């Protein structure tokens, strides 16, 4: 025991780790500056957005370096305590709420990704939205959005997490509806907002439940409130919680994750959200906002681990939802003609993988997939934006306005191909190392069925991405990319493509409306190239096939499942923790965390197992991916270029295929279900009930009162009014007439004058009151 304690090292820390809370603060201040002074600045506020994101990126980079040092300074298998700093936020009725940062491996990796992608997207937007009429507002919302995500990532407590979560919801509404003059766009923004809000209720309920369930335990054992994420994690693994309570809390939180991360059945908002400008799609709907739900699950993983009995027998809700999402979203991607919608469904499908991984106990592969997916999906979205910006006159329709672009847009084409291969999971691109790990670990943890679904998803991913690539870059140039003139095209577009009617036109027609497709400028291609390089190489950070030495992300990010001695309540940032390190080399299976009640201490993370990498399994999934690419290529060539008679129009001729196609085109009728059935079922009766109440109850009361008062007033009129009052009134009437003449102008009908009178009267009354009382 003493020997074990000596082996423990004091963990290093540093300025960046201690001041990581500055990372979200900087863009938040940037937002305030842009919204207040943006329009007067020389670059209309975009420079503030870009600078604040660069500052955040530098800080995040420094934090990452120091975190790596910190992990290195710990002993083998030692629990690396997060760097915690908290401040009192507010007090109410004896309760004390804190706000603060908790930096650990998960926070660091997401911080770096978010800051990096945000910076690139801001740079990209300076060109993409050049000349937009709400340029300043766009940058303000974009910057605030990043601040929200960063705040959520560093959150020490569930309240700050909730705050960042809601800021993101608001900003996504503003950004998706950026071109709100078009009805379709503002509808998409509303849909996104309300769908996500449906899920958000779950977060509120979950956070409240966790607080009330865990507060006593966390206060006693750790000296933190029931909002502290560390406290909740330790509580969830302590064997203390009632299994029903934690299950309900986990389900509530998972509903929030379903809404935010576009999981089935609340995925319908995500494809519609493509109505926003492309940089928004790239930032919100590939790498940050939709990842928030996955982040929530991985952040509060112990709650889900205990609540859903992950690694226990049978599947659980997270896995089932994840698996359904993978397949249905991938199937929908096949029938889309809009290139951004293909990518949107692809995002939904990939998020399904992350959820599947988390549900199956593959925590690290899922988090690593967030990391790699962010790069290649952002690159794909920005590539789609580059095409629409420079080649297809703001159209996103692959069938009508694209094709054959590989020759005119070499940089976009190359980066697109690299990212597509990464998305499909081709060795050695980054997606291979993360997605294959998820599939492998799901199988390894005993969920064979779900592994097969994962492989099926990989096949479908490869196939629909090949279709999209073929339609965009190969074959003959069609429509706008063939250089058709813009004017004769504009009318055709407006009918079929809602994206098309957005602004930017005015600026661009003058700019380069006259010449045909061309490569985009450096502010668009530079982010593309950087992201493509990362899409190619970021997988090597956790390249399991090459042995333990390559598993850097695992060392840096995965929390070590060790029993940590309960620390005395108190000081922030306690970096020295006594722990009982495990003696075993691998560290597997011998930590009690997650499987049994820890004695003399607490666990912050459950013990998970990692699959041993085998080339035979990897070859199987690679074979499936190549099969998907090849099949899809052959079908695409026959269908779109040679117009093979056997395939063209097959969906109209064959009954089974037609009904399947209709089901997909109508998105499984989910939108119809939500809007026509559920909303009507809820809103209809409420309206009817309100009407009935109004007509029968309120009106009835009014009628009764009216009848009674009529009788009464008749009596009053005959007896009092005519005899007593009239005499008096006739006299006073004369006096009033004089006064009325004076006061008549006061009754001007102008509300503000009434207001002024009201307030001045109130002020006089207050003055009188003060004088009387003193």
């Amino acid at each position: 025991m003493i020997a074990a304690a000596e082996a423990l090292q004091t963990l290093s820390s540093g300025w960046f780790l201690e001041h990581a809370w500055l990372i979200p603060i900087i863009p938040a201040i940037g937002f305030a500056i842009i919204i207040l002074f943006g329009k007067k600045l020389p670059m209309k506020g975009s420079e503030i957005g870009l600078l604040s994101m660069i500052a955040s990126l530098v800080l995040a980079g420094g934090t990452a370096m120091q975190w790596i040092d910190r992990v290195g300074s710990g002993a083998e298998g030692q629990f690396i305590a997060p760097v915690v700093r908290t401040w009192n936020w507010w007090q109410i009725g004896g309760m004390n709420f804190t706000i603060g940062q908790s930096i650990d491996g998960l926070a660091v990796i997401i911080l770096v990704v978010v800051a990096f992608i945000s910076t690139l997207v801001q740079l990209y937007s300076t060109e993409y939205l050049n000349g937009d009429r709400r340029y300043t507002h766009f940058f303000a919302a974009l910057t605030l959005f990043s601040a929200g995500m960063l705040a959520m990532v560093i959150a020490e407590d569930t309240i700050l997490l909730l705050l960042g979560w809601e800021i993101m919801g608001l900003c996504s509404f503003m950004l998706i509806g950026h071109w709100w003059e078009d009805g379709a766009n503002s509808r998409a923004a509303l849909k996104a907002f309300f769908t996500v809000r449906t899920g958000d209720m779950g977060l509120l309920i979950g956070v409240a439940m966790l607080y009330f369930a865990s507060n006593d335990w966390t206060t006693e054992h750790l000296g933190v409130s029931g909002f502290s994420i560390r406290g909740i994690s330790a509580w969830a693994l302590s064997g203390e919680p009632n299994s029903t309570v934690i299950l309900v809390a986990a389900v509530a939180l998972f509903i929030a994750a379903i809404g935010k991360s576009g999981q089935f059945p609340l995925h319908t908002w995500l494809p519609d959200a493509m109505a926003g400008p492309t940089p928004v799609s790239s930032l919100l709907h590939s790498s940050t906002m939709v990842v928030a739900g996955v982040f929530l699950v991985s952040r509060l993983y112990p709650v889900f681990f205990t609540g859903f009995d992950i690694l226990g027998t049978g599947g659980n809700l997270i896995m089932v939802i994840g698996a359904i999402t993978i397949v249905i979203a991938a199937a929908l991607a096949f029938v889309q003609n809009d290139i951004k919608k293909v990518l949107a469904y692809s995002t939904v499908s990939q998020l399904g993988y992350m959820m599947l991984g988390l549900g199956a106990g593959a925590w690290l592969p899922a988090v690593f997939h967030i990391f790699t997916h962010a790069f290649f999906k952002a690159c794909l979205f920005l590539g789609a934006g580059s095409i629409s910006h420079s080649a297809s006159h703001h159209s996103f329709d692959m069938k009508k306005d694209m094709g054959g672009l590989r020759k005119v847009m070499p940089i976009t084409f190359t980066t697109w191909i690299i990212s597509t291969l990464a998305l499909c999971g081709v060795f050695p691109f980054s997606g291979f190392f993360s997605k294959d790990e998820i599939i492998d670990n799901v199988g390894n943890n005993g969920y064979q069925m779900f592994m097969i679904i994962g492989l099926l998803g990989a096949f479908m991913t490869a196939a629909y991405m090949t279709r999209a690539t073929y339609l965009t870059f190969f074959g003959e140039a069609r429509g706008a990319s063939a250089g058709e003139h813009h004017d004769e095209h504009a009318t055709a577009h407006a009918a079929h493509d809602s994206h098309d009617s957005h602004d930017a036109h005015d600026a661009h027609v003058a700019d380069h409306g006259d010449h045909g497709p061309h490569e985009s400028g450096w502010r668009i291609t530079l982010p593309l190239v950087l992201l493509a390089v990362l899409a190619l190489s970021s997988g090597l950070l956790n390249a399991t096939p090459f042995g333990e030495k390559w598993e850097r992300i695992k060392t840096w990010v995965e929390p070590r499942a060790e029993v940590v001695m309960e620390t005395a309540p108190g000081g922030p940032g306690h970096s020295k923790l006594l722990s009982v390190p495990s003696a075993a080399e691998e560290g597997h299976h011998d930590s009690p965390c997650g499987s049994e009640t820890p004695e003399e201490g607490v666990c912050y993370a459950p013990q998970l197992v990692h699959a041993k990498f085998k080339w035979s399994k990897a070859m199987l999934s690679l074979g499936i991916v190549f099969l998907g690419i090849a099949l899809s290529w052959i079908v695409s060539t026959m269908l779109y270029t040679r117009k093979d008679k056997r395939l063209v129009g097959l969906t109209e001729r064959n009954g089974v295929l037609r009904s399947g196609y209709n089901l997909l085109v109508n998105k499984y009728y989910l939108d119809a279900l939500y809007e026509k059935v559920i909303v009507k079922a809820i809103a209809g009766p409420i309206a009817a009930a309100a009407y009935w109440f109004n007509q029968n109850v309120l009106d009835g009361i009014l009628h009764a009162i009216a009848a009674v008062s009529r009788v009464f007033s008749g009596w009053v009129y005959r007896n009092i009014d005519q005899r007593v009052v009239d005499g008096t009134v006739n006299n006073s009437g004369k006096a009033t007439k004089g006064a009325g003449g004076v006061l008549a102008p006061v009754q001007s009908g102008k509300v503000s004058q009434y207001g002024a009178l009201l307030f001045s009267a109130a002020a006089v009354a207050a003055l009188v009151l003060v004088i009387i009382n003193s």
Partner: protein
Amino acid sequence: MLVNQFLFLAALLFCIGVYGVIARKNAVLVLMSIELILNAVNLNFVAFALRSGNADGHTFALYIIAIAAAEVGVGLALVLLIFRNRKTISLDDLSEMKG
């Protein structure tokens, strides 16, 4: 005393709100000014709750926030309808209600 500063801030907010209600012609801005007034009151509630050390004031503030949300909902609906009928939301043009 800390409470004093809250009260000064609340008074300032209140005055800005009153100014907005009286001086602004745009109905939406007037609604926003009313929000300011409500929040000034909220601030007072919270400040006094802080001094007296019980949670009643906070609870009241939460209620006011909820009711203010409903109020804005109704107000904006009115503005929307006025705009549909009149194509303007300037309060000066809405002076039919005179004696």
